[in-house]
C-alpha cells in the first residue's frame, strides 16, 4: 500500500534523502491475520521512516507481548529490536535509551500490554516524558489470547460471544496528558494520511510521543456490537482537523488564513500545521484537551488527530546531563577512575 499515490505532504519518491528505497525499510513477513489493523500501522511506520529519511542503524525497536508487540519484527529490519516481556517494554526502553541516548526509540504495545499488566510502567514512562515513540495498537481486546476484553474496551461493547463489557475504558490519551507526556495523539489504522503525518511529527519530537492507534482485530473484535470494529470506528471517528507536517529538510511554506491553523515548531526544526475545527481547539492546553476527550467519549466517539503537544518540555534523558558519547560506548579510561580516586576513598576510611 506504500506505493499508493494519494497525496501526502511529502509526495513519495523512488528513493528518500538517504538514497534508500521504501523496500529497504521493511521487516520480515508478518504473521498477523490478514486484515489486522496492526499490519496497516506497520506499513505507515515504514512509510514515515522512509519519508523522513531516518538512518535505521540509529533506531531501536521495542515491544512487550501480544499480536501488536510482534509487529516490530515486521518493519525496519536494519534496526535492532527487543521484544521483551508482557507489559514491561517501558522499562526496557528506558534502560536502552539511557545506555545510548543518541538513538531514536520506537516502541509498539497493545491495549492489554499497556492498559492492563503494563499500566504501572506506562504511568511512569509518561511522567518521565522519555524520548520515545510509544504506539498503542488499540483493538480493545487481547488478540493473541483470543479476544478477551482489555482495559480500553468501551462500556457496553459486545464480545464475539455476546458478553457485554461493564467496566469503563481507560483513556490512554487522557492518562498520558494528565501524567506529563509531551506529544499525545490518537489515530485510526485505516486513516493512512493522518497516521502518517502524526508518525512523521513524532519522529521530529523529543519527548514521549504517546500515539493511541485504534486498530481493529478482524478475528475477535470486528463484529456488530463492538465499538472497535472497522465499521464502528469509521462511523465514530471525529477528526480533530487536518494535520500537515513539513520536515526540516524540505522548504515548503504552507499558507493558511490566520487563525485557521495552529503552527507548531518542532524540536528538530520541522513544522506541524494543525487546522483548527470550528470550535477552536488549542492542542497546547491540557484542560481543553481533557475536556474534548471526555466530551467525545461521552458521545461514544473517538477524537483523532494531534490532541496535545508541547515541543519544548523537559525529558528524562536530557535531564540526566549525560556526556556526548553513548554510555554504552564509553572507554575504560572514562569509566574507571584513576588510582588516586581509590586512594582518597581509602584514606577517608582509615
Amino acid at each position: 500500500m506504500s506505493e499508493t499515490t494519494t497525496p501526502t505532504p511529502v509526495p513519495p519518491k523512488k528513493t528518500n534523502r538517504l538514497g534508500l528505497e521504501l523496500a529497504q525499510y521493511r521487516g520480515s513477513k508478518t504473521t498477523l491475520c490478514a486484515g489486522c489493523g496492526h499490519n496497516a500501522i506497520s506499513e505507515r511506520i515504514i512509510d514515515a521512516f522512509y519519508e523522513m529519511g531516518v538512518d535505521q542503524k540509529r533506531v531501536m525497536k521495542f515491544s512487550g507481548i501480544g499480536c501488536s508487540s510482534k509487529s516490530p519484527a515486521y518493519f525496519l529490519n536494519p534496526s535492532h529490536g527487543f521484544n521483551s516481556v508482557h507489559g514491561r517494554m517501558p522499562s526496557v526502553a528506558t534502560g536502552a535509551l539511557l545506555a545510548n541516548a543518541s538513538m531514536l526509540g520506537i516502541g509498539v504495545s497493545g491495549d492489554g500490554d499497556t492498559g492492563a499488566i503494563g499500566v504501572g510502567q506506562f504511568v511512569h514512562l509518561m511522567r518521565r516524558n522519555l524520548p520515545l515513540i510509544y504506539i498503542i495498537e488499540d483493538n480493545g481486546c487481547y488478540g493473541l489470547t483470543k479476544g478477551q476484553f482489555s482495559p480500553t474496551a468501551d462500556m457496553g461493547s459486545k464480545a464475539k460471544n455476546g458478553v457485554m463489557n461493564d467496566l469503563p475504558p481507560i483513556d490512554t490519551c487522557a492518562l498520558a496528558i494528565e501524567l506529563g507526556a509531551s506529544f499525545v495523539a490518537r489515530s485510526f489504522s485505516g486513516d493512512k494520511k493522518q497516521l502518517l503525518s502524526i508518525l512523521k511529527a513524532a519522529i521530529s519530537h523529543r519527548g514521549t510521543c504517546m500515539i493511541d492507534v485504534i486498530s481493529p482485530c478482524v478475528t475477535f473484535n470486528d463484529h456488530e456490537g463492538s465499538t472497535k470494529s472497522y465499521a464502528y470506528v469509521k462511523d465514530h471517528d471525529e477528526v480533530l482537523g487536518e494535520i500537515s507536517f513539513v520536515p526540516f529538510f524540505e522548504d515548503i511554506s504552507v499558507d493558511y488564513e490566520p487563525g485557521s491553523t495552529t503552527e507548531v515548531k518542532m524540536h528538530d526544526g520541522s513544522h506541524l500545521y494543525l487546522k483548527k475545527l470550528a470550535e477552536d481547539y488549542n492542542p497546547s492546553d491540557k484542560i481543553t484537551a481533557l475536556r474534548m476527550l471526555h466530551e467525545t467519549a461521552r458521545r461514544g466517539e473517538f477524537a483523532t488527530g494531534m490532541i496535545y503537544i508541547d515541543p519544548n518540555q523537559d525529558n528524562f534523558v536530557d535531564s540526566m546531563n549525560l556526556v556526548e558519547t553513548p554510555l554504552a560506548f564509553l572507554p575504560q579510561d572514562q569509566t574507571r577512575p584513576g588510582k588516586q580516586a581509590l586512594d582518597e576513598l581509602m584514606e577517608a576510611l582509615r
Partner: protein
Amino acid sequence: MSSPSPSASPAEAAPSTPVVNDFTVQVATVNGSGSQTANLVLLRAIFQMGVPVSGKNLFPSNIAGLPTWFSIRANHRGYISRKREVDFLVAMNPETAKEDVMTLEPGRAVVYDEPLNLKSLRDDLIFYPVPFDKIVAGVCTDAKLRRLVRNMIYDGVLSHLLGIDLAQMEKALAKQLGKKPKAMQLNLGALEAGKKFAEENLQIRHPYRVEHLNKTDGQILIEGNQAAAMGCMFAGVTVCAWYPITPSSSLPEALIGYMRKHRMDKATGKATFAIVQAEDEIAAIGMVIGAGWAGARAMTSTSGPGVSLMSEFAGLSYYAEVPAVVFDIQRVGPSTGLPTRTAQGDILFTAVNSHGDTRHVMLLPSSMEECFTMAMESFDLSERLQTIVYVMSDLDLGMNTWMAHPFKYPEQPFDRGKVLDEAKVKELGATWGRYKDVDGDAIPYRTLPGTPMPAFFTRGSGHNAMAQYSERADDYVQNLDRLARKFETAKTLVPPAILESDADATIGIIAYGSSHWAVQEGRDQLREEAGLKTAYLRLRAYPFGPEVEAFVRKFDRVYVVEQNRDAQMLSLLRLDLDPSLAPNMRSVLHYDGLPIDARSISDSVRAQEQVQ
C-alpha cells in the same frame, strides 16, 4: 536477642584476672536517639588503638522509638564474628533493660541509667549506675539538644571503665563531626563529662580492658554496601536502576555519592553514568536489561522481595542472553520477613529463579575486599557469559561496620565479552548468527544497536541460532542444550573456592559469605577445645568448580554451614555434585536473624561428631 539461661554458678562469677582485648560491649538504646555516633566513636577508638574490632547493629524495622542493640567486639586474635555472650552491657533503654540484664552470664558488667535501678535485679553482676540526665544537664543547656549528646556520655564512662584513650575517642569523634564544629564541641563536652563522672564515682570491679596493640595498622573501617558501590564504580558501571529496600538501599545511595564525585567528565562536567530510582523492582531490572542489551554495564541492587519480583525478567536475561548484574543484600524471611535482620535465605530460589529450565550464576562475597572485587567480577562475568549474575551479599556484610585492608586498584582491564567487531564480522561473515556457538564454549557473539554491525531481533520467545522466531522442536532443544553447556563454561570462569586446612584434617567444612568469620573462629574452637582438625572450603561462586567435588570426596563428613533453615547451599551441592557424595554432607544451620556466631558452629559440629 539470644537467651542463654543465666546459671549463676559462682565458679563462673566475676573473674579477677584481667581480660585484655577480648570482650563484647553491648549498647542497648532506642532507635532514633542518635546513639549511632556514640557507638561508632567507641568502635573506632578501639580500632585506632590497634585492637581488632567489629560492630553489629541490631536495629528494628521502623524509624524511631523501638529497641536497638549495638554490640562491639574487641578481640586480640582478630575474631570479628558476632560473639553470643555479652560481657559488658550499657543499658539505656528502659523497655529492654530488664531482659537485657537477665540474659547476661554471671560476672558480667552493666552500665545503666541510674533511674532504671537495675542492680536490684541480680546479685551476680557488676553494676555501674550513671545519672545521665544530671550529667547531660551540666554540659548542654539547650534541652532540645540533650537527647542527641546524652549518648556521648557513656562513651566517656567507658573510656574510663575499659581504658580506652580519650584522645582516640576525640579523634574518632572528629572523623564523624569534623565538619560540624558546634556539634563537635557539644559532644566533646559530654564525652569528658562522662569520663570525669566515672573517674570520680565508679570504681572498676570488672576484668575487661583495652590495651594498645598493632593489629589494625593501615586498615580501614567500612560497610559492605559501600565496598560494593566502590567496586561498581571501578567496574565502570554506567547504568544503575534501583528501588529502595532495606538492607540494600545504602548500596546505590553510596554509589550516587561516589559517582557524583569521581565519575563526572572532567572536561564537560557531564555524567558518565545514569542512576535511576525506578518505580519498583520490576522496572529496575527491566531498565538494567534494556541497558545491558544496548551495551551498558548495568546493575540493580535489592533484597529478597525484589528478587522475587524480578523472576520473570531473570528468565528473559537467561534465555535471550542479556547481561545484567543484581546485588541481593539478603535479609530474613519469606515474604516481607524481618527487613533488618540478616540471612542467607535466597540461595536456592535465586539459583533456579524463573519458570522453565533456568540456572543462574551467583557470586558469594565474604569480606569487604570481596564486596569490592566481586562487584567488579560480576560485570565481567555477566558480559562474558551474557546472562544475569547475582552477587549474594547480606545485611551483616552490607550494613555492619567491618575492618578491611585497603582495596587494591584493579590491574585487569574490563572484559566486555563477545561483542562482534569489524574483525570478527569479517571472519564470520554471513555465517554470523546471534545464537551460534562458534567458539565451542557455548557463548555466542552479540552486536550492539548504534554500531555498523548487523542487527538482530531479541525475544524471550522461541528463536533459532540466527535469532529468528522459531517454534521448531530441534531449534528449541539445541538452544537449551547450548545454554546448559554455557553454564558448564561458567564453572571455569567464576572465582574458585578457597581451601584452608589443618594438617591431617579429619572432617570438612563448607561455608560461604558472611558465615566465613564465624567458621574461622569455630575451627579454632574445634581444634583447641575438642582436638578436631578440620579442612575448610569457602565457596565463592555458583556454579561450583571441580575443586568443590574434589573436596567433598576427600572426607566422610563435610559440614555445610549456612544461615537459612532449608540447607539451601547443601541442596545445590546435592544437585550438582556426584550423587554418591550426597551422604557425606551434613548441615550446620543458623537462622534466627542474628549474624551466625562461632559457638553455634563448634557446638553443632561437636554434637554431630559426638565429641564432648
